[in-house]
């Protein structure tokens, strides 16, 4: 079995760095077994498609537009992601996930299960640095990813001691 865990988001745009940040957190705290790939893919748009091919399951971490306070998490499954036709949205990479999944559905080899762990952003603007509510949500989102991997039967193992997440875009 193979599972892709992908973080989406633009590290140069404030809270949109959430997905990449959670990926760095996961890699610092956990070791992943064979068949589990964990990657920060930035904002690939439809170029997300090649990374979804050949995986049985998919876990995506991203910012989402939803009613609620910044930093609140929302979980979605495949049917909910595919329910509506592609819509314009706050961040520029929006069409990527939905359209890539739809293309795979049409090809006939989509991932069987999908979990989207989404955080509601506060500030998405042309600056580096995530706001406090989003920082606080990072371990919570990471825990949801770990829970999903456990459910799928490929639990990661804890790094002891944990490393420091490599938030390279915030270093000067």
């Amino acid at each position, binding site marked *: 079995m193979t599972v892709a865990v992908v973080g989406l988001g*633009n*590290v*140069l*745009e404030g809270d949109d760095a959430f997905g990449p940040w959670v990926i760095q957190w996961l890699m610092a705290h956990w070791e992943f077994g064979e068949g589990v790939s964990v*990657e*920060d*893919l*930035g*904002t*690939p*748009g*439809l*170029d997300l*498609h*090649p990374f979804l*091919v050949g995986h049985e399951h998919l876990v995506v971490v991203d910012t989402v537009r939803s009613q609620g306070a910044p930093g609140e998490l929302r979980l979605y499954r495949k049917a909910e992601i*595919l329910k509506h*036709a*592609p*819509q*314009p949205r*706050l*961040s*520029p*990479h929006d*069409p*990527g996930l939905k*359209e890539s999944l*739809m*293309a795979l*559905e*049409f*090809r*006939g080899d989509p991932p069987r299960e999908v979990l989207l762990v989404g955080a509601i952003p506060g500030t*998405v*603007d*042309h*600056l*580096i640095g995530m706001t406090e509510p989003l920082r606080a949500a990072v371990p919570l989102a990471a825990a949801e990813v770990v829970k999903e991997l456990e459910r799928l039967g490929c639990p990661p193992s804890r790094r002891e001691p944990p490393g420091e997440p490599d938030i*390279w*875009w915030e270093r*000067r």
Partner: protein
Amino acid sequence: MGQRITVDPITRIEGHLRIDVEVDGGRITNAWSTGTMWRGIEVILKGRDPRDAWVFTQRFCGVCTTVHAIASVRAVEHALKMEIPLNAQFIRNLIIAAHAVHDHIVHFYQLSALDWVDVVSALKADPAGAAKIAQSLSDWPGNSVQEMQAVKDKLAGFVAGGQLGIFTNGYWGHPAMKLPPEVNLLAVAHYLQALEYQRKVNQIVTLLGSKTPNIQNLAVGGVANAINLDSSSTLNMEKLYFIKDILDEVGSFVKNVYLRDVAAIGSMYPAWLGYGAGVTNYLAVPDLPLDGKGTQFDLPGGTIMGGEMSSFKPITSFDDPYFQENVTESIARSWYDGDWNRHPWEEDTVPKHTEWTPEAKYSWVKAPRFGGKPTQVGPLAAVLVGVAAGHEPTKKYLTEAVGLASKLAGTQLGVQHLHSTLGRHLCRAVRCAVMFDTAVHQWELLVGNIAKGDLAIFNPPVFPKGEQRGFGFHEAPRGTLSHWIVIENGRIKNYQAVVPSTWNAGPRDEKDQRGPYEASLIGNPIADPKLPLEVLRTIHSFDPCLACAVHTIDVEGNEIGRIKVL
């Protein structure tokens, strides 16, 4: 005054672009192109180490990551007057070529073919008839009756399930859709096959770049790909042959399917070889350097002004003064403080937003100019420049594509038809085939150089005290990209990126000259103002990618209708 239509957003991927047109008597009489988001990357880079700039610039846009990384290291190397080792140049070139092939395939099949292909009509197709047409174009194995039947069944099953998924929101049944059902079916079949080949060719970028998107193997001064033919963890012959195998497989798709599909579809929309010319000043920079300093190239560069091939002026090196001296950006009609037209080294980026005012300021995109003139960039420019420079591979594939389109259309087409909406698609396919041949050449150069015993990959950069200025250009899939850097005491003092979609999508300037998108729309027909498919056709033919041109503020304008695009 005619009827005003606003189309917003117009890109299927990445970034926000809004187009306003006036329609009178079924024709577009005026047009405005608006980037609705501001880009602030220049501000983010100030004060940073120039050696790190490429890591940040490739995050401008998640689709064009590689190209911004390449342009950035070239800009710093130019400022430091550096040479890089041959292996580093060839490895970068292979990444550039593989990325370009990937990007062109995605653009045609996944992002713009559906402007011409009616997916729903394919349900009415006779699979045997579709296969017959496909086989008349090439003996590609994916053109069999079984393949066409399987795709038709798949599509029918999809529609029977009550949904069109990825194809929802298309302009199905629009009067401007002209292809017979069989051609629509073969296009859907090739759409599915294209997904596979664009993924394959991207593996080259992943292998050489360590990761994609956002390659990790670059450095100012070279690359980080250790070469050791006896080691399994470095670049070795096994990996090089893996790359060669992918190239051969994908090359066959590009030549037998992509190039011929575009010629065939083009021949069935002859009117669109007449619409969409707009600005006929063209710029393409040379690329895929053959030496360490960038004085000889596999692909030529230069300018053509006023559509006159005889006006060709070459751009011949990474240090070319004709290029350096002629690029400016105007903010007369853009939401920045001031109304200047400046050289990139002298620019600043101070946002000043107002209402959307077509007579004054109406876009976040700046208006680049070459020698003061609006100038079109992209594969059309690169192909025209290639022809003018006598570049054999460009001439070969252009002759092949135009020959096939002429035969199918029953009329002799020539270079004059390339200044058009479909001409841009045709030239992109030609450029893709040229890129494939060039990738193979670069692969041979790399293997040959390693075989000579040269394993060098990196020359360390040295930053002198004081100020240095540099520029790095790259002929990216969407056209000429240039990064301009001012370094002071080893830190970035100013940084500007003049990107392809800025050249093409930019607004008017201080002389009221329209940008390429705007000019290309004038005269386009509009069959149904509520479904302005024709606007999308012309704009999509440029391959817009606005995330790197602009960034994140939404602007609401006065519009009579908001048209959503798939």
